[in-house]
């Protein structure tokens, strides 16, 4: 099992040094992704999921951001120890990334063909003509109609869904794509377009055996896409496991609350009120050493404020970080 891991993160800590103080964006994060699987990283805004993605790519804006400690292992190599040059050869080749806003993540003054071709030129020293031919192939692969014509378009001439397809094409422009990090890839899209993009991603993943790190806040998207799930809250991983375990037997009160808050949850179809989590996401600046969910948790006890809990295992790789997981039934 171990050697099947494509990427493994150990003890990652990322902070942001702002004028108001040091924000611990990610704390003691362990995470791994197996070859060919989809891991969903779920959480609400500010939980550190996007920062984790940037950290894997080593693209955390610095300053103010800083990767404090930890290891990010790709085939046994620690990415955090590579030189910038070595890292550049991995970005876009072994690991690639797509972003939330298809409207702004493509360069407005270059044709989309040129932008895709750039990846081939960068990593495979192709000449421009060859690379452009490759770009047409890639557009065809992500099912953009009339790709020979489309390569000559500028981003603003495409719809949001089409642009996200171009982003995917760029991310896959490598003979050997290993991991695609998708940071809220469908949040900005309409639901019918979202379905198309998710389908495309699933299909491509199957055909080229690539791993997918899917970052999202939408539990519906998680249910549809993920093999495994990691739930983050305020910079901490609070629960992780198989997608069925997480949805059918959530063990952390936050995961339970998140599922209960979903209006599409069958439970509430005709019942009216939602079982909401009270309160607001805490300010990361004011978080202590305890469990970050303590301030909103209706089961919290004094110990929760003092100490972040140790891991509890429930079998099948289902882990949870809660002092009372398994002891109390959270509803």
């Amino acid at each position, binding site marked *: 099992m171990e050697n099947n891991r494509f990427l493994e993160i150990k003890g990652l800590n990322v902070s942001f040094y702002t*004028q108001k103080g040091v924000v611990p964006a990610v704390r003691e994060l362990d995470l791994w992704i197996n070859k060919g699987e989809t891991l969903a990283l779920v959480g609400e805004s500010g939980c550190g999921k996007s920062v984790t993605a940037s950290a894997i790519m080593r693209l955390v804006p610095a*300053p*103010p951001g800083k990767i404090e400690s930890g290891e990010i292992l790709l085939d046994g190599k620690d990415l955090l120890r590579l030189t910038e040059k070595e890292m550049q050869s991995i970005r876009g080749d072994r690991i690639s990334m797509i972003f939330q806003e298809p409207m702004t993540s493509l360069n407005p003054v270059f044709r989309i063909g040129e932008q895709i071709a750039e990846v081939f030129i960068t990593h495979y020293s192709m000449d421009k003509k060859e690379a452009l031919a490759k770009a047409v192939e890639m557009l065809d692969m992500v099912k953009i109609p009339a790709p020979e014509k489309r390569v000559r378009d500028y981003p603003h001439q495409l719809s949001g869904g089409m642009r996200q397809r171009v982003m995917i094409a760029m991310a896959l422009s490598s003979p050997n794509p290993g991991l695609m990090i998708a940071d809220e890839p469908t949040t900005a899209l309409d639901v019918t377009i979202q379905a198309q993009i998710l389908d495309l991603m699933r299909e491509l993943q199957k055909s080229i055996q690539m791993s997918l790190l899917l970052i999202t806040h939408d539990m519906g998207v998680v249910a549809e896409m993920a093999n495994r799930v990691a739930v983050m809250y305020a910079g901490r991983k609070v629960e992780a496991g198989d997608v069925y375990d997480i949805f059918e037997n959530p063990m952390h009160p936050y995961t339970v609350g998140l599922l209960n808050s979903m209006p599409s949850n069958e439970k509430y179809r005709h019942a009216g*009120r939602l079982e909401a989590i*009270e*309160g*607001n996401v805490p300010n990361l600046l004011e978080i202590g050493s305890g469990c970050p969910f303590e301030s909103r948790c209706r089961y919290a006890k004094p110990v929760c404020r003092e100490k972040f809990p140790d891991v509890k295992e429930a079998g099948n790789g289902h882990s949870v970080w809660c002092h009372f997981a398994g002891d109390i039934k959270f509803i």
Partner: protein
Amino acid sequence: MNPIKIFKAGNDAESRAAESIWYENWLLLKKNRSAMFGLYIIIFFLFLAVFASIVAPFDPYLQNIDLRKMTYFSWPYILGTDDFGRDILSRIIYGSRISLVIGFFAVSISLVFGSLIGLISGFYGGWFDRIAMRVIDIMLAFPYILLTIVIVALLGPTLLNAMIAIGIARLPQYTRIMRASVLAEKEAEYVEAERSLGVGNMELMFMSILPNCLAPIIVQATLGVGSAIIESAALSFLGLGAQPPTPEWGLMIASAREFVSNAWWIVTFPGIAIVLVVLGFNLLGDGIRDVLDPRLKD
């Protein structure tokens, strides 16, 4: 029905109570060292201007007949004397009065009228907007230095006219900035929200939108004081502003032109005074922009 829970207020509820955006911005500005440095320079010159009669060692008009010649660094004339034997330091100190007054006055003209036109133009649109923009376009078709010179040439070369000319020539910039931010602000949801609550046009325009449009105008005005000071000096240098023997910085430089080859200090020191005070306004203006313009924030 379920009771609605009341969230516990943090113990910071009162302590943070009065932090308006203006106050928070001021706190940020205070942390900006170069902006504060600029502010200190301005305060220093304001001090000189207000207490010129106490601070200046000599009467700026007093011609020292005994010296006759231009002297350099000789006690008690720290910065030397000019061709009439007048103390340069004292003239510079008195000159700060003129420059600051011109700077503030000229900017007030363009600030008040320019913003008002921009506000009404942007808010109401329609025929007023079309006419105002047409006129502004024509004014902007002149490089403003030229426009200033023309206006002052027409009104006659006096200090007051120089102020008015600078104020008028710079007015279109304020109108444009104000109009642009009003147009942007009008799109904000809170304007629609307040309209839906029955808030009338006047209250919307002056009480809601205007305060939110002030940021770029304040930046422009701060930088504008600096450029107004330079421009008034330039007008005086060309003989279109202050007239001799007024201790005006630009005029001092102009009258020293013929001595560049043997009395560099007469030219240099008034110029340094201009650079310093303008630098002060530019530093402060840049600092304010950094604080107020969220696009440049990290």
